[in-house]
């Protein structure tokens, strides 16, 4: 169980996230939606402590993660893998090394610094890439791949961490509809088969409805909706995005993934 209690973050006098309380079941697929600046990224980053909360605490299985430091903090980061909108791979390194980097937390320093990986690590990395259908690019440089491939490499790196949680900050915002679907399907597969909790910031509401079993709506740093996808309709959306925003958002975002009909090409926005 991942529990957030009164979690807040201020940047100067701007409150990015205020007083968020959440209880998230293990193994769930949670979508976080809300307009730009709502505090979605900040919320996710506080969970694996790339951003420090200014108040409140975040507990995972009764351990207060907000108090961790040093190697305990790094172990926690290894347990909650992060996937970024811009992939955040090391572009000059080959794909295999990028994926093995997911195990840096489990390696002694001398092996890390000399890049002396074991055969087991290489095999594990190749398996992870294979699972995402891109084993053949293992020896290419990361920046030689398409965006969709890079995001899958990032997911393979996350899998190498053998995480309990995957935090994905707009994982499909830089991708075309086809690659977006491939990436979301991969996350769903990991969520269902490995039972890893996935928490995913999304801009596209229909993607959230398609993939998530729980949707959290944020506005101005606060949680303003928390419920099942079926409840995430009309008035609620208006409350999150504002009356104009809801209209725009629904039109802009309802087309980027083929809702329901898996694999059918997405129509272009009007």
């Amino acid at each position, binding site marked *: 169980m991942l529990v957030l209690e009164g979690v807040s973050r201020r940047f100067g006098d701007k409150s990015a996230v205020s007083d968020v309380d959440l209880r998230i079941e293990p193994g769930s697929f949670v979508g976080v939606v809300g307009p730009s600046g709502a505090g979605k990224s900040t919320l996710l980053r506080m969970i694996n402590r790339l951003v420090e909360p200014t108040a409140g605490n975040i507990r995972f299985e009764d351990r207060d993660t907000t108090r961790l430091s040093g190697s305990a903090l790094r172990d926690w980061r290894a347990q909650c893998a992060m996937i970024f909108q*811009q992939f955040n791979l*090391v572009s000059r390194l080959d794909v295999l090394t990028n994926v093995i980097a997911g195990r*840096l937390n489990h390696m002694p320093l001398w092996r*890390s610094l000399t890049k002396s990986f074991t055969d087991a690590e290489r095999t594990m990395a190749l398996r992870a890439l294979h699972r995402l259908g891109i084993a053949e690019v293992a020896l290419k440089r990361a920046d030689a791949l398409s965006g969709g491939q890079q995001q899958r490499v990032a997911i393979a790196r996350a899998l190498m961490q053998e995480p309990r949680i995957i935090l994905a900050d707009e994982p499909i915002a830089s991708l075309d509809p086809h690659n977006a679907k491939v990436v979301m399907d991969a996350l769903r597969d990991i969520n269902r088969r490995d039972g890893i909790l996935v928490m995913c910031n999304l801009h596209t509401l229909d993607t959230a409805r398609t993939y998530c079993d729980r949707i959290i709506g944020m506005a101005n740093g606060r949680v303003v909706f928390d419920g099942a996808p079926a409840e995430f309709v009309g008035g609620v959306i208006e409350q999150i995005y504002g009356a104009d925003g809801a209209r725009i958002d629904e039109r802009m975002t309802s087309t980027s993934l083929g809702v329901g009909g898996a694999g059918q090409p997405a129509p272009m926005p009007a």
Partner: protein
Amino acid sequence: MSATDVSEDVLTVMQARIAAHRREKRLMTLSGIAIFLLLFFTASWWTDFGIGAIIDGLPKFGHYLAKLFSTPAGGGSAERIPIVSFAHLFGGWDTKQSILYWFYNIGTFISLMLDTVAMAVLATLLGFSIAFLASFPASHNLSPAPWIVWLSRRILEVLRSIPDIVFALFFVFCYGIGPLAGILAMGLHTAGALGKLFSELNENASSRPIEGIRSVGADWFSTIRYAVVPQVFPGFVSYALLRFEINVRSSAIIGVVGAGGIGEEIKKVINFNRYEDISAIVILVVLLVIAIDTLSGRIRQRFIGDARIA
């Protein structure tokens, strides 16, 4: 009618402003010229620098050439016989004052020049290693704490701002005459110069891979190794090669204070007025520097090219 008034008002106001602006600019130009002249004449007066001194010295240049292209008359007389024939100038090793004769000592010179290059190689490697290690704590985006940035930057600044020849004087005092002093001197100065450039490269490195590697739970060293080094290393090598070119020139000079290499020989032949040796060394050093610069430039280009493809 009132509109015309207003527009004429604007015109008058603007004309006045333009005039004021031009006066200001003229004043700036005049002050600039005044400062230039003041500096020039003060410094000239202080150093006795002047066209007169330059012209007075010119005959000595002719004198040098005259000595170079003449042979002693022999028989104890101070008289010198000028070289008139090309046959003489391009004569063999033992034809006095032929070009080949300048290089009678070429074996020594070449061995000293190899010393000089070896000194530059060692100093560059030493400086590179120190700069490499120091550049990460000296980068704002990577350093564990602001005071560490401050401290490492100040140390690099001190190393950089002390000229290598001053370091050399100090090390010759500590370790005696010889290449060791020169290597340490150039190595420390190189560490300071490269350290600053390296930390600037580090600060321009993309933060995305850094965040990516940090998010898997990697510690500071691994984050540097995986997220920063791959981004900055080609730049490091390129700067190091440039520094190597500078160090080759520098190590040819630094021997003058006793820090090893061809510089010691330069000082000796100048002191003893051995004209043909001076010429030989000058020619050899120029050839060496051209060769090193060309070679290093080639490597640098290929390295950058390779890094893009690989």
